[in-house]
C-alpha cells in the first residue's frame, strides 16, 4: 500500500547523503531557490521516475530556456524571478501546533463555510489528530475503485507503477512545447493526479482531489492526467471551497484529459487560492494554468465546469479539441474578481471532427477594483462538417471601480458551421438592490442573491454538494464588496 510505504521511502532518502550537495535536514528537504538541469534531475530522482520521464522533463526544460514569458493576457504583475523559486520542497511542511497559531481571519472564513475543525487544521497546515484517519479513508476508497479496475493515484505513483500508460498519454494533449508555463511545468512538475477508467466502466463515485489531501502536498507545479477509455464515464472534482494559503506565489498547473470513443469526462473545479491582501493585493497567488482535453474518438464528451474565486491573478483557458466525429465540448464558468484580483480566463473549442458541438457559458463577476477578461476562441476547421457552437458570455459589475472585458475569437473554415454568440454586461442595479432592501434584505444578502441568480446556469452543472458550497463561497468572497 503506497500510503503506508511512503514514509519509509522518505526516511530512507533522508538518511542518504545527498550526492548533489543540497541542504538536507530532518524536518524538511528543500532545494535552494533556482532552476537548472540538476534541479530537474534531482526532482526526477527523488520521485524515482523512469528514465523516459526524466528525458522528457529535460527536453521541456531545454525548450523552456528558449521561450519568452507571454504578455498578451490582460493582467499586470511584477516580473517573476524564476531563479528565486524553490522547485523542490518535500515531503513535510513545517506544521503549526494548534489552530491558535493560524490567522484568525482565515479561521473566521472557514467557520462561515462550515468546514469541520479537523479539515480546518489540514487546510491551514496544523498537525492533524490521529482521530481523523484519512489514510484509512483513502484505503477504503481505493479498494472500492480497484474492483472496477479504476486507477486513481498520485502522478508520481502512476509514473512508477503504470509507466506505460503515463508514457502513452503524457504530453499528447498539452505537448511540452505548448506554452511558457506549461513547458515550465513539464520540466519541474511536483506531483498531481492520475486517473484511468477502463473500457465500459462508469466510475461509481465523484473522484475528488479531496481524498488525496493527506498525501504529500502537490505543490505549485501540479500535473493531472485523466484517461477515459471506450464507453467509460468519470466525474472529477478538483480543488476545495476553503481558502488555501500557500507560500508559493506562482502556480503553473497542467491538466490533460483524453476521452476515447463514447467516453465522457466531467471536470469540475472550485479554485479559491489566496487572493492577496484585500486592500493592496499583496501576497496573492498567480494561477497560470493550462487545461486541455481531447475528444479523441467519436461520440466522446468533455465538460469543464469551473468556479474561480481565488488567486491574485488567474490565467486559465480550459479547452477542448473535438477530434472525434459527433464529439461534444462544454465549458461552464463562473469567475469572480473582487478587491484587486485580476482574471483573464475563457476557453478554446477546436472543432476538427464532423457534427461536433460545443457550448460555452461564461459568467464573470467583477467587484471592488477587480479586473476581468473573458477570452474565448472557437475554431471550426475545414473537415468539421456541420459543426455547431453556442457561446454566451455575461458579465456583471458591482461598483464603479471594476471592469469586465470580452475578447471572442472566431475562426471558421467550413461553410456548414453554425455559430451563435451572445454577450451582455450589466451592473447590479441600484433598483434591484433597493427592491431587495425594501423586502428586508441587507445589501450584502441582496448582492449574493443577485449574483447567485446570475450564475445559476453554471452552478446547475456542478455536482449537487459542490454547487451548494460554491453558492456559499460566492457569498463569502463578495463580502465587503459594497462600501
Amino acid at each position, binding site marked *: 500500500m503506497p500510503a503506508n510505504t511512503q514514509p519509509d521511502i522518505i526516511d530512507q532518502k533522508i538518511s542518504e547523503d545527498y550526492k548533489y550537495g543540497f541542504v538536507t535536514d530532518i524536518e524538511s528537504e528543500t532545494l535552494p531557490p533556482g532552476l537548472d538541469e540538476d534541479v530537474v534531475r534531482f526532482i526526477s530522482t527523488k520521485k524515482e521516475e523512469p528514465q523516459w520521464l526524466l528525458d522528457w522533463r529535460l527536453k521541456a526544460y531545454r525548450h523552456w530556456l528558449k521561450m519568452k514569458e507571454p504578455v498578451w493576457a490582460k493582467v499586470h504583475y511584477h516580473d517573476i524571478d524564476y531563479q528565486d523559486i524553490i522547485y523542490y520542497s518535500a515531503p513535510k511542511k513545517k506544521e503549526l501546533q494548534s489552530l491558535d497559531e493560524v490567522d484568525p481571519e482565515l479561521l473566521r472564513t472557514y467557520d462561515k463555510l462550515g468546514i469541520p475543525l479537523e479539515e480546518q487544521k489540514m487546510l491551514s497546515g496544523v498537525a492533524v489528530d490521529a482521530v481523523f484517519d484519512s489514510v484509512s479513508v483513502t484505503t477504503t476508497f481505493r479498494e472500492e475503485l480497484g474492483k472496477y479496475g479504476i486507477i486513481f493515484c498520485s502522478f508520481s505513483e502512476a509514473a512508477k507503477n503504470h509507466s506505460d500508460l503515463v508514457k502513452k498519454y503524457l504530453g499528447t494533449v498539452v505537448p511540452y512545447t505548448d506554452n511558457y508555463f506549461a513547458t515550465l511545468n513539464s520540466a519541474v512538475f511536483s506531483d498531481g493526479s492520475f486517473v484511468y477508467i477502463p473500457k465500459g466502466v462508469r466510475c461509481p463515485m465523484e473522484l475528488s482531489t479531496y481524498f488525496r489531501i493527506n498525501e504529500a502536498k502537490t505543490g505549485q507545479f501540479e500535473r493531472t492526467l485523466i484517461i477515459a477509455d471506450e464507453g467509460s464515464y468519470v466525474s472529477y472534482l478538483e480543488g476545495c471551497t476553503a481558502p488555501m494559503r500557500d507560500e508559493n506565489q506562482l502556480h503553473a498547473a497542467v491538466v490533460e484529459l483524453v476521452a476515447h470513443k463514447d467516453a465522457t469526462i466531467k471536470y469540475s473545479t472550485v479554485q479559491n487560492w489566496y487572493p492577496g491582501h484585500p486592500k493592496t493585493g499583496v501576497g496573492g497567488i498567480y494561477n497560470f494554468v493550462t487545461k486541455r482535453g481531447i475528444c479523441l474518438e467519436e461520440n466522446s464528451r468533455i465538460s469543464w465546469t469551473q468556479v474561480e474565486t481565488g488567486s491574485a491573478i488567474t490565467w486559465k483557458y480550459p479547452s477542448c479539441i473535438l477530434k472525434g466525429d459527433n464529439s461534444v465540448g462544454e465549458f461552464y464558468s463562473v469567475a469572480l474578481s473582487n478587491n484587486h484580483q485580476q482574471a483573464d480566463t475563457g476557453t478554446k473549442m477546436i472543432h476538427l471532427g464532423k457534427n461536433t458541438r460545443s457550448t460555452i457559458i461564461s459568467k464573470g463577476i467583477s467587484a471592488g477594483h477587480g479586473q476581468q477578461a473573458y477570452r474565448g476562441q472557437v475554431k471550426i476547421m475545414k473537415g468539421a462538417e456541420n459543426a455547431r457552437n453556442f457561446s454566451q458570455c455575461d458579465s456583471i459589475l458591482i461598483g464603479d471601480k471594476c471592469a469586465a472585458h470580452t475578447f471572442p475569437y472566431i475562426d471558421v473554415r467550413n461553410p456548414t458551421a453554425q455559430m451563435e454568440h451572445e454577450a451582455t454586461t450589466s451592473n447590479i*442595479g*441600484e*433598483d*434591484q438592490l*433597493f*427592491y*431587495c*432592501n*425594501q*423586502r*428586508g*434584505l*441587507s*445589501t450584502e*444578502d441582496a448582492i449574493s*442573491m*443577485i449574483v*447567485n*441568480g*446570475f*450564475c*445559476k*446556469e453554471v452552478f446547475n452543472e456542478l455536482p449537487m454538494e459542490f454547487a451548494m458550497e460554491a453558492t456559499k463561497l460566492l457569498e463569502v468572497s463578495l463580502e465587503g464588496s459594497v462600501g
Partner: protein
Amino acid sequence: MLEIKNLHAGVEGKIILHGIDLNIKQGEMHVIMGRNGSGKSTLSNVITGRNGYEVTAGDILYKGESILDWSPEDRALAGIFMSFQYPVVIPGVNNTYFLKAAVNSKRKYNGKKELDAASFLKLIKEKLTEMDMEAEYLQRAVNEGFSGGEKKRNEILQLLCLEPELSIMDETDSGLDIDALKIVAKGINNYHNEKRSFLVITHYQRFLKYVEPDIVHVLIGGKIVKSGGKELAIELEEKGYRWLEPA
C-alpha cells in the same frame, strides 16, 4: 403610525416636496392623488429611504420614532412595505427563494424562528390561492417574463407574506385591466384591518371604487393642497386638478 412633519425633500439637488404634513393613524387608509411630477413617487421613495433622496427639512416619524437615519432594510423590517410602481426583475433568483429569504429576514428581526422549507411552502400556497395565482409561479425568477398585471399581483402576494403594518401602494393600479384591478383591490381589502394602515398613491379615481379610503389628499407642486373624504376624489374626477392649483 406614520407622521410626516413639514417634509422638504428632493433628489439630485432638486427639491420636490415643499412642506408635507401627513398623519396616518393605525388602521387608516389614506390616498394621495396628483398628476405626474407632483411629487407622489418622491414621497414614497423618501418614506422608504431610497438612496439618493435627501430630506432637507422636517421629519418622518414611524410609531413615534424618527426614521430619517434608518437604512431602507431597517424601515422594511420595522413594518413599512412598498408595492413598487415598476417591480424589478432579478434574473435566475426564483420567487420561492426570494420570498423565503425576505420572510425569514423579517422573522429573525422580530425574534421569531425562521421558517423551514415545508412551512414556508404551506404559507405561500395559501397566499397564492388568495391572489388567484398558479403554483408554477414559484419556479419562475422574480418578475422575469411577468406581465404588468402579474407583477402587481406579485407585489400584493409579497405584502400578504410579509405582513407589514404600513403599506405604501405606489400606483399599484396603473397598467391593470379591470379584472387584475379587482384582484389587487380584493387582496388589499382582505388584508386591511384596524391595525394595518395604508398609503395609496394613485393617478386615477377608478381605483377608489374598489377600496375604502378614510382620507383623500391632493398633491400639487410638492404640497398637499386639499384633504377630504372619498367625495374629494369624485370631485377631482369631475373638475380635474386645475381648480386646486394656485393662481
